[in-house]
């Protein structure tokens, strides 16, 4: 029997980017807010000290900052006809853990989606006709537009001190920026970071080919910055230990370096770490959340009553908690009914590794930062005519080499032995003169009827709850899209003068063991129809109106960009709706 704690106005499940944003906005509105986080509290100086922050073995290989599979995991299969098996070592994506969540270990690539991405189904149907889309593709419009999100994108970029070059300010195309981006209300708060040599070379080759390269927008500081909450960040040192790592010198935007110092000064905010929420509690009608139940490290169960519940865990765990709490109808792919678990997506990331003449090219690849790179956006979203190509979707491509770390980044030409003297010799010869872009091709993955999340019938977690089960595979559309993008990407490396260009296409079947990105999306998506979405356009749950569900789980399909900018913009958008609409009249904000 759970012991009951004093009531709060708001309980927040998970204290990553979205939880921290919502906690700050609602605490500022005067509400009594508590956040419950599964993992530990983390501070910059004590948890990522320069003495060991750059330990690749500890953080990259041994997954120091991530959920331990012993705590919980998930099962995976490609097709519904197969039996899903549990994952015991993280592979294709990394479930974050601890205060700051994925915002601690991200590269800080801070993109906005294209205006057409938010009205994708409508846009593609109008341009190419409904028959152009694959029959089993289940893409949807978001029920929120780019223009509506713009102020919230802007707010997040100024919170983070994003370094970048604007490409479109209020409709005016800016030289050096991304000409395809939606109109932004003002420039980035900080100029772009300086680019390493291989990135500069890539930009020149792209320009020579007629593209418009621009620096990737980055949450790594190009100079010291104080954000609107008064919190300060220091300049990046280009150490190349961003992704998988916490930043030891206050240079990468994270909840720790941007929000938490201001948030914890509010006496009406508190947090409970190392406590795992096991369900969202409902009243007898099932239409109202009464709070959450969580378990602490002693194994004791507690009930935290609250008027408003904000679910802001990682994508698959958002979906799992809805399913385990019996909120919304579970998706059934055979009947094509139900909303929780549908439109689950990931990404199609691929690589082009290029080898240059070591006598002529010295790239110093260890000079890097997480979101550093020169990109082109000509082949993203619907920025180009897809009619001749027979697929939809796209992505940005760029020389986004974020590190030259010794274990992970030792590219050697194909055919080199995997270990031993010959391998060492090849590493030595190529380390300075090879390029290995991390997310070089960063492609979309659209949603399909047979890609989804549900509860596993066999495997249980430590609380005897069913594990979440992922059923996912790539479809022809994504394979074609990836081949197209990878080939375009490779052409630029050839133009740079590479002596050998090695393309690593993303292929089917989807491989759960090979890392792509942590950008899982969907499963509890937003939309305008309660029959095909779990949330309305304010991320409010259709069935339980005092529950808001934040994060990329709300994306109806993935776009060709990293999601954090959009995840954060949606969190601000939902917070604004709660502050200006919901609190005045708590109830369903949209009648459908």
């Amino acid at each position: 029997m759970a012991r009951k704690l004093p009531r709060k106005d708001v309980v927040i499940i998970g204290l990553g980017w979205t939880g921290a944003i919502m906690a700050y906005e609602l605490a500022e509105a005067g509400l009594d807010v508590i956040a419950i986080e599964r993992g530990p509290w983390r501070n910059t100086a004590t948890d990522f000290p320069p003495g060991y922050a750059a330990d690749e073995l500890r953080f990259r290989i041994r997954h120091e900052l991530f959920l331990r599979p012993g705590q919980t995991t998930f099962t995976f299969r490609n097709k519904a006809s197969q039996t899903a098996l549990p994952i015991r070592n993280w592979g294709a994506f990394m479930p974050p853990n601890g205060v700051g969540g994925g915002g601690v270990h991200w590269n800080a690539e801070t993109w906005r989606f294209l205006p057409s991405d938010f009205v994708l189904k409508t846009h593609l149907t109008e341009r190419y006709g409904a028959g152009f889309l694959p029959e089993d593709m289940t893409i949807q419009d978001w029920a929120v537009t780019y223009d509506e999100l713009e102020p919230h994108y802007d707010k997040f970029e100024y919170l983070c001190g994003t370094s970048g070059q604007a490409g479109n300010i209020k409709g005016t195309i800016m030289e050096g920026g991304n000409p395809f981006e939606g109109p932004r209300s003002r420039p980035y708060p900080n100029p772009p970071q300086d680019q390493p040599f291989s990135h500069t070379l890539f930009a020149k080759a792209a320009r020579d080919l007629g593209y418009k390269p621009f620096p990737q927008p980055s949450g790594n500081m190009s100079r010291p910055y104080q954000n609107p909450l008064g919190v300060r960040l220091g300049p990046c040192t280009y150490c190349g230990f961003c992704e998988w790592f916490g930043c030891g010198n206050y240079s990468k935007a994270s909840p720790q370096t941007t929000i938490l110092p201001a948030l914890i000064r509010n006496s009406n905010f508190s947090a409970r770490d190392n406590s795992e929420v096991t369900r969202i509690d409902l009243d007898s009608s099932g239409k109202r959340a009464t709070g959450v139940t969580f378990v602490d490290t002693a194994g004791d169960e507690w009930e935290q009553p609250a008027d408003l519940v904000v679910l802001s865990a990682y994508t698959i765990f958002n979906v799992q908690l809805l399913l385990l709490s019996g909120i919304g109808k579970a998706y059934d792919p055979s009947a094509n009914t139900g909303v929780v678990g549908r439109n689950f997506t990931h990404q199609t990331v691929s690589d082009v590794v290029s080898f240059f003449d070591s006598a002529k090219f010295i790239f110093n690849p260890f000079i890097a930062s997480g979101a550093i790179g020169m990109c082109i956006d000509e082949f993203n979203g619907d920025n180009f005519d897809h009619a001749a190509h027979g697929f939809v979707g796209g992505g940005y491509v760029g020389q986004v080499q974020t590190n030259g770390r010794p274990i992970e980044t030792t590219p050697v030409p194909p055919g080199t032995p995997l270990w031993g003297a010959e391998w060492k010799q090849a590493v030595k010869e190529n380390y300075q003169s090879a390029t290995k872009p991390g997310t070089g091709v960063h492609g979309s993955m659209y949603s399909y009827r047979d890609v989804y999340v549900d509860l596993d019938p066999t495997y249980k977690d430590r609380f005897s709850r069913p594990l979440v089960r992922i059923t996912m595979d790539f479809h022809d559309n994504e394979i074609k899209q990836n081949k197209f993008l990878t080939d375009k990407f490779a052409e630029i490396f050839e133009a740079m003068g590479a002596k050998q260009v090695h393309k690593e296409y993303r292929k089917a079947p989807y491989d759960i063991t090979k890392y792509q990105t942590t950008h899982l999306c969907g499963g509890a998506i937003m939309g305008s129809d309660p029959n095909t979405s779990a949330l309305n356009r304010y991320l409010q749950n259709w069935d339980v109106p005092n529950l808001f569900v934040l994060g990329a789980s709300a994306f109806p399909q993935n776009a060709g960009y990293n999601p954090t900018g959009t995840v954060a913009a949606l969190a601000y958008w939902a917070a604004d709706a709660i502050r200006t609409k919901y609190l005045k009249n708590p109830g369903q904000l949209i009648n459908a």
Partner: protein
Amino acid sequence: MRRSARLGLTALVLAVGTGKGTGADLQGFAAINRGRYLAAAADCGSCHTIPGSNHPFSGGRPIETPFGILVSPNITPDRETGIGAWSDDEFDAAVRKGRRRDGKLLYPAMPFPYFARMSQQEVKDIRTYLATVEPVHNAVAVNQLPFPLNQRAVMMVWDRLYFAPWTFKDEPSKSKEWNRGAYLVQGPGHCGACHTPKTFLGGDKLSKPLQGYTLQGWVAPDITSGQGPLGQWSVDDLSQYLRTGHNRFAAAAGLMGEVVELSTSKLSDGDIYAMATYLKDVSGPRPAADSSGDSSVLAAGGAIYQDLCSACHKSDGTGVPNLIPNLAQAATVNTGDPTTVLRVILQGAQSVATDREPTGPAMPAFGWQLNDTQVAAVATYVRNHWGKAPPVSADDVNKERKALDARTN
């Protein structure tokens, strides 16, 4: 919501307070407000609260002195264990004359020689404010000194030597601002209690006001305009530091972090500027002549510095304004006494977070990673490469390491 609950509590305390037979005017907002401000200026909260406790002014905090440990008493209005039953005159005698309620003498860990500069009315206002805070029942065994120091009669001698009660008088040749600053620094602010060198009996060396002292494991640097950091800082730099805990050179941590958090950050901009104006006008000795470390030690220290320190403090030691201290000009680095720099290298330090500068950046500990020789090398490097402070030996580091291991604060 929380705010209204607090108001309710205050009102309750006020209602209870009026029954206590003190002479204080608990209905008078003006007196309470003046008292609250002066209590902040006098930093009563630092010593009389256990850090992190939800019971301000309830005492029990150990105060380390060269003679032993004293523990601060409870100054909440609790009648039995606090000051609830004290008369205003008894309170005034304690604050301004160093006399307890029973007539015995207070130890100068209570800075009554400074507080004597306050007027009787001001002390009464502090008393009025303290009568409104939540009463906490907390009996404190104050005196934990060894014999014969635990005999308070010894204080008679001390008082005769070091306590010259006099009220503050304006210096007519100086500006109004300067005089306000002088009053705050010499009176309630009691800056000299930490920053003025002490005699072997613990009295202020009056010939060397504010020229630096080391206490409770931290260096309180020279804050005259002579060899200390203030020589380089402008009045604005100093104001910003006192107001926020950070400026383009430095970050307040340790005891000074507490002073900023509980005291100076709560003062008006005008008073902060006045204190800075006065302090900038206090002259002090010029820096001593060069003293260099051994070149091989400097080379080793420089290598450690580039590996472990330069990411934040930068290769040239200039740091990041308002975030990472400037080592090339850091007071606690470029001073004769390496206590603070060794402490921070070995143990790390969290700088203060204030409403205006909420970041509260911290430096991690390196004591687990570097041995005594390595710490000595990097300390010597940072003290010597940009500054002129004397080298540090591995023995110095070893002593500091042991002292820190034994510390409870």
